[in-house]
C-alpha cells in the first residue's frame, strides 16, 4: 500500500483500534485517538515533503497543462468490467486540503478531551468520518469519490444525534436528509458523466479527456454544482448548516464547518468546473448571483444571532459563499482564492467552534448577551477568539485576507463569458459583506469578552494545556498562511492551471486527446 492510501487508512485503523479498546477505559480511548491523529499529522508532513519533491510547480508545461497531473498515484483495477478502479493520487489542491483536514482532526481530538459520554463510539465515528474526508480528497475515480463522500457524511447523524445539544435529533435528521438528497444529485451527475463519456471508465482523468456536448454540459453542470453546493452551503440550500452546527458537539462542529463543507467547494471545482467547462461558462453568472446572496445573507443573518454557535454558523454560510463565488469567477486568481479560502475558512472556523466549545464548557451558556468581560478570567481564549475574528473579517497578515483579496480581484478581473459589468457589481456587493462581518464580529467579541465581568463568571479558569495546544496550532496556521502565502499559492497554482486552461478550449482543441 502506498503513501497516499495511508492517508485514509490510518484514521480508519485508529477507529478500529478505538472500537477494540476494552470497555471502561475512556482515557485509553482518547490516547489512542490522539496518537493516531498525531501520527497522521506526521504522515501528512512526510507526504507533503514527498509531494513537493516530485511535483513541478513552474515551467511552460505546467502553465499550459490541460489535464490534471497527479503525483504519488496508486491505481489498481477494482470492478474491471465496469471500469471502476482504486485510483488515488494527489495534486496541489488535494494536498492542500489533506493538510487542512489533518490539522483540524488533530485539534478536534484535543478539543474533545472532555467528552465523557460513550467516548469509544464518539472517537470511532469521528475517525471514520475523517477517513471518508481524506478519501474524497485523494480519490480520482468517480465511484471511489462517491463512496468516500457518503462515508464522510453519514456518521454526522449519530455524532450530532447522540452527543449534540439542543434540538439535536431534529438537526441531525435535517442535516442528513439534505446532504443525502444532494448526494442523490451528485450520483445522477456521476452516472451521466460515466455513460456520457462513452469510455466505460470512472477514471476522472480519462473522462476529462472527453468533450461533452453543450446540451449535456448545460444540464449536468448545475446538477453537480447544486449537489456539491448543498454541502458547501449554497443559498438557498444552506438551511441545514446553522441547525446542524449549533446542535453538534464541539469537535464535530469543527470538523463539519472546517472540513466537511469544503467537500462542496472541492467537488464543485474538481468535478463541475474541471469536467464541464462549457457548462460552467453558461451557468457562471447565475451561480455568481446565488453565491452573492449567500455572502450577504449569511453576514446579515449573523448580526441577528444571539447564540455564539448560530453566529459562527451563519458567518460560515457567508464565508463558504466566497469559496463558491471564487470558483464561478472562472479565472486563475479567483479560483486560487477559492482554494485558499477553503483552507483559511477551515482553520478559522475550526478555531471558532473549538473556542466556543471551550467557553461554553466554562460558562454553560452560549448566549452572547449573558456573557461579558470574560477576557479578564480567560485571556488566552480571548486572544485566540480575537485572532479568529480578525481573520474572518479579512485582516491583512492572516489567512482570510489572502483568500478574500484573491477572490475579489478575480471577480473584478472577470472572464470572457460573463458580462463584466454584472460581475463587477456583484463583486462590489459581495465585498460589502466585509463591513458587515466587521460589525458582527467586533460587536459579538466585545459583548463576550469586554465590559464588566459578571459575578458568576469570576471563578472561571483559562485554557488548559490541551486547549492551548489545539488553539495555538490553529492560530499559528492562520498566521503562516497569512504572512507567507506564496508557499501555498505555489502548491495550488500548478493544479489550478489545467482547470482554467480548459475553459478557453474550442471544440477543435479537444481533438488532441
Amino acid at each position: 500500500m502506498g503513501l497516499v492510501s495511508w492517508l485514509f487508512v490510518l484514521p480508519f485503523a485508529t477507529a478500529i483500534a478505538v472500537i477494540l479498546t476494552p470497555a471502561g477505559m475512556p482515557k485509553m480511548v482518547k490516547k489512542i485517538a490522539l496518537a493516531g491523529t498525531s501520527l497522521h499529522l506526521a504522515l501528512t508532513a512526510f507526504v507533503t515533503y514527498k509531494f513537493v519533491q516530485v511535483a513541478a510547480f513552474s515551467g511552460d508545461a505546467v502553465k499550459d497543462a490541460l489535464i490534471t497531473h497527479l503525483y504519488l498515484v496508486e491505481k489498481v483495477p477494482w470492478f474491471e468490467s465496469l471500469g471502476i478502479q482504486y485510483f488515488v493520487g494527489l495534486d496541489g489542491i488535494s494536498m492542500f486540503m489533506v493538510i487542512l483536514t489533518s490539522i483540524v482532526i488533530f485539534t478536534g481530538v484535543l478539543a474533545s478531551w472532555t467528552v465523557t459520554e460513550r467516548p469509544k463510539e464518539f472517537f470511532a465515528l469521528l475517525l471514520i468520518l475523517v477517513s471518508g474526508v481524506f478519501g474524497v480528497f485523494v480519490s480520482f475515480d468517480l465511484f471511489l469519490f462517491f463512496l468516500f463522500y457518503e462515508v464522510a457524511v453519514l456518521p454526522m447523524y449519530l455524532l450530532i444525534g447522540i452527543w449534540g445539544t439542543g434540538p439535536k435529533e431534529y438537526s441531525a435528521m435535517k442535516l442528513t436528509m439534505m446532504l443525502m438528497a444532494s448526494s442523490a444529485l451528485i450520483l445522477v451527475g456521476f452516472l451521466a458523466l460515466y455513460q456520457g463519456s462513452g469510455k466505460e471508465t470512472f477514471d476522472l482523468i480519462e473522462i476529462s479527456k472527453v468533450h461533452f456536448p453543450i446540451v449535456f454540459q448545460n444540464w449536468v453542470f448545475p446538477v453537480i454544482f447544486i449537489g456539491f453546493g448543498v454541502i458547501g452551503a449554497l443559498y438557498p440550500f444552506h438551511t441545514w448548516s446553522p441547525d446542524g452546527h449549533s446542535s453538534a458537539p464541539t469537535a464535530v462542529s469543527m470538523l463539519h464547518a472546517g472540513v466537511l463543507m469544503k467537500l462542496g467547494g472541492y467537488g464543485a471545482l474538481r468535478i463541475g468546473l474541471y469536467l464541464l467547462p462549457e457548462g460552467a461558462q453558461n451557468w457562471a453568472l447565475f451561480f455568481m448571483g446565488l453565491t452573492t446572496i449567500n455572502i450577504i445573507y449569511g453576514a446579515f443573518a449573523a448580526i441577528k444571532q444571539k447564540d455564539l454557535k448560530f453566529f459562527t454558523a451563519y458567518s460560515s454560510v457567508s464565508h463558504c459563499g466566497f469559496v463558491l463565488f471564487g470558483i464561478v469567477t472562472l479565472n486563475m486568481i479567483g479560483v486560487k482564492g477559492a482554494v485558499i479560502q477553503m483552507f483559511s475558512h477551515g482553520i478559522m472556523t475550526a478555531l471558532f467552534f473549538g473556542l466556543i466549545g471551550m467557553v461554553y464548557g466554562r460558562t454553560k451558556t452560549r448566549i452572547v448577551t449573558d456573557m461579558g468581560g470574560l477576557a479578564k478570567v480567560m485571556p488566552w481564549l480571548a486572544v485566540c477568539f480575537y485572532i479568529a475574528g480578525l481573520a474572518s473579517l479579512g485582516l491583512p497578515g492572516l489567512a482570510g485576507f489572502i483568500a478574500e483579496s484573491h477572490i475579489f480581484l478575480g471577480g473584478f478581473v472577470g472572464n470572457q463569458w460573463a458580462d463584466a459589468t454584472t460581475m463587477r457589481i456583484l463583486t462590489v456587493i459581495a465585498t460589502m459583506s466585509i463591513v458587515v462581518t466587521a460589525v458582527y464580529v467586533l460587536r459579538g467579541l466585545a459583548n463576550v469578552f469586554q465590559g464588566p465581568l459578571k459575578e458568576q463568571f469570576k471563578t472561571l479558569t483559562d485554557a488548559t494545556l490541551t486547549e492551548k495546544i489545539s488553539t495555538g496550532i490553529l492560530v499559528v496556521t492562520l498566521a503562516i498562511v497569512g504572512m507567507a502565502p506564496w508557499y501555498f499559492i505555489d502548491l495550488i497554482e500548478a493544479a489550478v492551471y489545467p482547470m482554467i486552461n480548459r475553459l478557453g478550449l474550442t471544440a477543435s482543441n479537444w481533438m488532441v486527446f
Partner: protein
Amino acid sequence: MNALAPEIIVAVTGFVVLLADLFLAEKRKHILGPLALVGLVVGGVAVFNLMPQTVEALGGRFVFNPVAGWFKLLFILAGAFTAIFCWQSRAKEKLESDGEFYSVMLFTLVGMMFLISATDLITLYISLELATIPLFALAAWKKGDPLSGEAGLKYVIFGALASGLLLYGLGLLYGLAGSADLQTIRETITASPALWLAAGIITAGIGFKITMVPFHMWAADVYQGAPTTVTAYLSVASKSAGIAFMFQMFFGIFGAQLSEWGWLIAGLATVTMTLGNLVAIVQNNIKRFMAFSAISQAGYIILGFLGPFSESVPSMLYYLFIYVFTNMAVFGVIIYYNDTTGKENIDDYKGLSRTNPVIALVMMLGLFSLAGIPPLSGFVGKFFLFNIAAKAGYHWLVAVAALNSTISLYYYLRIVRQMYMEPPTADAKSLSMSKALAFTFLILTIGVTLFGVIPGIYETINAQTSGWLSALQLFP
C-alpha cells in the same frame, strides 16, 4: 453431472426430513434443522459443480444455464438462512411442527429452482405453483393466532388471483404463438393488441409475486401475520423467485419488444419505490415496516429490466445476492429479538445499543446497507442498478431512485435512533445467543460489509452470465 442434481438433492432432503420427523423421538428432533441445512449445502455444491455450463434435461424442458445457476444459489442461500433461523428459534409454533416446516420450505425451493430452468409454459407454470402453494401454508403456520390465519387467507386469495391472471396471460401467449415452448413463442410473436394484453396481465400477475405497486396490498398484512422466519423467507426467496419469473417472461419471451416498454417499467419502478418508502415511514410494527421496505426494494430491482440485459442481469443478480445477506441480517435480528423478548415494535428497540451492542451493530449495518450507504454492500448493488437506468438514458429515474434512497434512510434511521439515542427501558437486559446463531450473524455481517468491496463476486457473476446472455442474441 445431471442438470437436475440440485433439485433432486433438495427434494430428497425434503422427504428425508419429513420421514425423520415421523420416526425420530421428540427430544432428538433438534437434528432436523442441521439435516435440512446439510441437504441445502449439498444442493448448493451441486449447483456450483454445474456452473458455468449449459446442460439440458427432461428432453429440453429443463435447462441449467449460468443465470439459472445463480438464481438457484440465491434460493438455496435464502433457504439455508431461513433454516438456521428456524432451527435456532425458540418460538412456540416452531416447536410444534418442526419437521413439516423444513420440508414444506424445501419443496417451495424445488419449485423456485425449477422455475428458472423451465423452457416451456407448462413447466414454468407448474413450478411456479409448487413454489407458491406451500407458502400459503407457511404464512398460516402459527396455529391459533388470528393474525397468522388472516395472513394465510389473504395470501391464498391474492395468490390465487395472481396465479389466475398469470394463467390467463400465458394462455393468450400460447394462443398467439401456437406453441408452449418459450423460444418458439419468442420467435413467432409480433407486436399486436393481444400481445399487449397478455404482457399486461402477466406483468400484473408478476406484480403480486414481487410486491410491485399497485399489486402490493397483501404484503403488509401477510408479512406482519406470518411467523417471522416465514416473513424473512417470503421477503427474500419468494421475491427472488418472482424476479426469476419476470426474467423468464421479459427476457425469455418479450425480448425484442422490451425496449418499447421502457416507460412502463420506469413508471412501475417509480411508483413502487416511492409508495413503499413513503408508507414505510409511518409504520410502527417492525414486520410491517420491513414489508414496505421490501416493496421499495422491489422498485429498485425492476430498474434492471430497463437495460441491455447482458449487462443488467449480472447487476440484478448481484443486487439480489447482496439483498439476501442484507435482508437476512435484519430479519435475523428481528427474529432473534422477537424470540427472546416477544417484542416486535420499533419502539421496543429502545437502547438496544446499550444492552446488546453487537446485535444493534448488526442491525444498523443491515439497515444502512438496505438504504444503500457506502461502503456497505447494498450501496454497490444499488449503484450498479442505477447505472443500468442511466445507461438506458433514464437520468430522471436515477434521480427518483436516489432520492428514494434518501427517504428510505429517513425511516431506517428511525430504528437506528431508537437503538442508539434512546435510553433502554427498565426491563431491558443483555441477551444470550447460541454459537450457531452468532456464527450465522458473523457470516451475514461479512456479507453486508465486504461483498460490495470485494470485486470477485460481481466479476464472477458477470464473467459467467454475460457471455451466455450475449450468445442468446435476443435483440437482433
